[in-house]
């Protein structure tokens, strides 16, 4: 029966087990223990993170739904809402990159269409080990094929994202997938049951033995045992999901259902417990009616399977027939497996026997919340960490940075994604943010994912702050104002006090920045236990921020447009070096402090850029991030159709390498026709920020002068080819 060994295997502590016994008033049977262990896993219960997540600002006049549902909802006016969320699929993607990533896409899509929204965009934030290793290449190739296979097939464009490389991800890649949906405000659906007597319908794929304990797997470190956790991998069926998507949206459109929830982590268990828990009811289901793919499945297996492409729907009894007809139209079965009951219990029958009978609130709401030990805050690192010798060949350094996969062109990745289906994508991947028009309106949405884990490792608080600031800056560069935030927090083992310190500080930084920008957090995801063989990844917050453009004609695109345009730098050059891609790539130095950030200054820079965009002054804008000014100027050349160079003249009193490659925050490089320059400088003065003309666009060379001396001269063509080839060259012989 249930001994310590069984409890351990379920990843429950003795204390948790005893609490379960108290809550249900007896010893659980094995199936019930399985139910609790899945729902009380870190992945489903947020037991280590909840305490800290509470401080995130979640309110706002435009917030229709904050955290707590499958996805957050923001009102964008005209009776429309956007629905968005980000999810991690890190552990499955390490075990089986293709299917792990593919099912990650499938999962986040379901979170969006469960709420009645049609998914309109996917973005992915990916982190891998260095490409010099064949293993890392195989993981990257598999992950990208997986995302492409699922997203392309279902017809949701993958419009952007990010790809970072660092040693710390070699044994623990990160795959975070974001999805944005669009819905009518009065056609949004929630995971609720309505009153007793309502019918519970199971729709989608049959249940198999796949993915049992997926949630628990994502809630433990990888070690040797992971080997036999392997058969848990699920295979995604995007075709089935497409049918499910259309059928679900159709029953919602026809107003045939009461509530709906996808079966994600913890499968049937999760939806069977959460829906009634949110509605103050109970639920009774009969497992014999659950469509099964394999023979001889036990109740334990049926309840905990994480087979993909399944949903649970609650409908009024008189609507069941109509629901069935819609699903039949899409060649899907909708099977009645139970009903809503009074009394707040989850009752599960199998072969006529009651195999689970527990209060839903115990399963869903009463999992203990932990305030795990937090290591003391670290001493701030010295501002000047080291003084590298001044570089002689800055052109060579620029090429070295452009060839660094983190900075290099990602076209090899996104050309494998259908980024244009649905015909809304105005700004293709590669821009600071993706921009999607909203059909039949003047509005457009901008979306970006961002997070720099080196900053977060050096100083978690700054890492959190900068991630928010930079994501908003990306939006400002295309002319969009941020309206809502989601986030994916990827960390190591929360039982390590140092990891908890990182977590606590990152969340504090994020909270502070979101408050400063006045943007609500409407949801997110936490992925702990990103450790392999005892080593944790860098703390990696990934921010997903959605922005709104009121007037689509005012969108600003990156890339120099024409020779003779003036280049203006918004913001201040300061002597930042540590934490930079430059020190990391060239000196293998990852010490010191991340660049400083001042939120008021940041906001003023963004406000200036936005005001200029709205006034139609800008011909291009691009923010300065990894690789600093030189990389930003080079990329601005690459993004334009004519691949123009530019000449920049700088006279700041700071080290030349910090000026060229340092990552001082809150800077944007903009280009304008000369006649608009005064307008921009005026806006900058109004906002109290530094802005100045630094050069002009033209020629086929990128030339930067410092105090009248040429410090960097590189033909755009050379730079472009270096940047373009850096990733594909690793995949020449890859299948």
């Amino acid at each position, binding site marked *: 029966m249930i001994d310590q060994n069984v409890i351990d295997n379920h990843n429950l502590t003795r204390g948790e087990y005893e609490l379960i016994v108290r809550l249900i008033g007896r010893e659980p049977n094995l199936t019930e223990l399985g139910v609790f262990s899945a729902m009380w896993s870190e992945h489903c219960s947020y037991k280590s993170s909840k305490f800290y997540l509470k401080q995130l600002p979640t309110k706002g006049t435009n917030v229709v739904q904050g955290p707590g549902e499958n996805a957050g909802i923001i009102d964008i006016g005209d009776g429309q809402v956007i629905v968005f969320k980000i999810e991690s699929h890190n552990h499955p993607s390490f075990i089986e990159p293709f299917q792990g990533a593919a099912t990650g896409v499938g999962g986040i899509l379901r979170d969006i269409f469960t709420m009645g929204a049609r998914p309109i965009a996917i973005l992915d934030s990916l982190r891998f080990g260095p490409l010099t290793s064949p293993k890392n290449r195989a993981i990257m190739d598999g992950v990208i094929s997986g995302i492409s296979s699922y997203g*392309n*097939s279902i017809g949701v464009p993958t419009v952007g994202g990010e790809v970072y490389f660092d040693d710390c991800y070699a044994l623990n890649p990160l795959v975070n997938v974001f999805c944005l949906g669009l819905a009518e405000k009065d056609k949004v659906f929630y995971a609720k049951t309505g009153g007793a007597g309502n019918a519970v319908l199971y729709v989608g794929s049959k249940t198999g033995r796949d993915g049992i304990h997926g949630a628990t797997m994502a809630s433990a470190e990888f070690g040797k045992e992971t080997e036999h956790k392997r058969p848990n991998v699920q295979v995604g069926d995007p*075709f089935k999901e*497409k049918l499910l998507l259309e059928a679900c949206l159709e029953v919602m459109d026809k107003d045939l259902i009461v509530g709906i929830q996808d079966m994600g982590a913890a499968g049937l268990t999760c939806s069977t417990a959460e829906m009634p828990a949110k509605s103050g009811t109970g639920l009774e289901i009969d497992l014999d009616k659950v469509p099964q793919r394999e023979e001889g499945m036990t109740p334990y297996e049926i309840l905990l399977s994480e087979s993909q492409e399944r949903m649970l729907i609650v409908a009024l009894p008189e609507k069941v027939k109509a629901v069935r007809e819609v699903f039949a139209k899409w060649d899907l079965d909708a099977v009645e497996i139970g009903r809503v009951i009074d009394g707040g219990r989850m009752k599960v029958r199998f072969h006529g026997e009651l195999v689970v009978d527990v209060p839903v609130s115990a399963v869903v709401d009463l999992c203990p919340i932990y305030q795990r030990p937090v290591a003391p805050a670290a001493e701030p690192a010295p501002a000047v960490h080291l003084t590298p010798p001044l570089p002689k060949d800055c052109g060579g350094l620029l090429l070295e940075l452009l060839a660094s996969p983190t900075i290099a062109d990602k076209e090899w990745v996104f050309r494998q994604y*259908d980024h*244009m289906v649905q*015909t809304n994508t*105005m700004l293709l991947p590669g821009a600071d943010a993706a921009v999607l*028009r909203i059909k039949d309106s003047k509005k457009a949405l901008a979306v970006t994912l961002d997070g720099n884990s080196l900053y977060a490792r050096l100083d978690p608080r700054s890492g959190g702050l900068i991630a928010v600031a930079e994501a908003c800056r990306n939006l400002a560069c295309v002319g969009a104002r941020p309206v809502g935030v989601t986030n994916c927090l990827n960390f190591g083992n929360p039982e390590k006090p140092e990891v908890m310190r990182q977590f606590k500080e990152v969340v504090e930084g994020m909270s502070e920045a979101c408050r400063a920008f006045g943007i609500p957090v409407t949801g997110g995801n936490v992925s702990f236990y990103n450790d392999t063989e005892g080593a944790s990844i860098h703390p990696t917050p990934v921010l997903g921020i959605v922005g709104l453009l009121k007037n689509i004609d005012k969108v600003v695109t990156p890339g120099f447009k024409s020779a003779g345009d003036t280049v203006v730098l918004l913001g201040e050059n300061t002597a930042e070096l540590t934490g930079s891609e430059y020190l990391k790539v060239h000196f293998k130095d990852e010490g010191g402090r991340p660049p400083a950030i001042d939120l008021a200054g940041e906001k003023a820079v963004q406000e200036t850029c936005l005001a200029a965009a709205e006034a139609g002054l800008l011909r291009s804008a691009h923010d300065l991030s990894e690789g600093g000014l030189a990389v930003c100027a080079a990329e601005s050349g690459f993004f334009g159709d004519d691949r123009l160079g530019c000449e920049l003249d700088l006279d700041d009193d700071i080290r030349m390498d910090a000026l060229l490659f340092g990552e001082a925050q809150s800077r944007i490089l903009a280009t304008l026709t000369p006649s608009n320059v005064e307008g921009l400088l005026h806006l900058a003065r109004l906002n109290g920020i530094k802005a100045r003309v630094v050069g002009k666009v033209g020629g086929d060379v990128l030339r930067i002068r410092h105090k009248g001396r040429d410090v960097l001269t590189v033909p755009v063509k050379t730079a472009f080819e270096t940047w373009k080839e850096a990733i594909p060259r690793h995949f020449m012989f890859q299948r």
Partner: protein
Amino acid sequence: MKFGVVAFPGSNCDFDTFYAFHDVMKQPTVWLWHKDHSLKDVDCVVLPGGFSYGDYLRSGAIARFSPLMQEVREFAAKGGLVLGICNGFQVLLELGLLPGAMLRNQHLKFLCRFVSIRLENARTRFTHKGRTGQVLRIPIAHFDGNYFAPPEMLEEIEANGQVVFRYADAEGRLTEEANVNGSLHGIAGLTNRMGNVMGMMPHPERASETLLGSADGRVIFESLISRF
């Protein structure tokens, strides 16, 4: 001109195609459901892109057995206009309404990007508003767009002037590099012998508004809409 856009399970450019005909080109446009047997008196049937039946087995292989395809076959035999885009092209090949077959892209990766295609034959019902030799900038997005036909078939297609589009560079040159998926003779689109059925891999519905980067695809829609 009344257009009908076919929806198969797994079609995913059906809305885009409908939007292009109905909202952009302002033409009467109706949905055609794969399980039905009626073409609703349309003048032109459009098979959209996507992944009908997941593209499992082979792209377009299963959609060809849809009930509606019997009607499409008869409609085409009587000279009705049929346009297949991407997956729709693949379905037409599988149906045998167009000659040849699609293989996996030569680099074995899905490929989504703008390409240039050269208009080879401006005397078809689908292209008469364009000029032979004209270069169009239109996106592609496919895994299986590497056109193949056995030598005799290929010869016949060429001899009949059935090739409508070839992958080219921006200047209209047929280079190996421009032939992004490895298609034989760089074929990106072709008609049947009678000239009333056309298939093309590039997506004209994605290139019908300048807002989205190109409106070159309108040539095809405008050709269809206006009589010869």
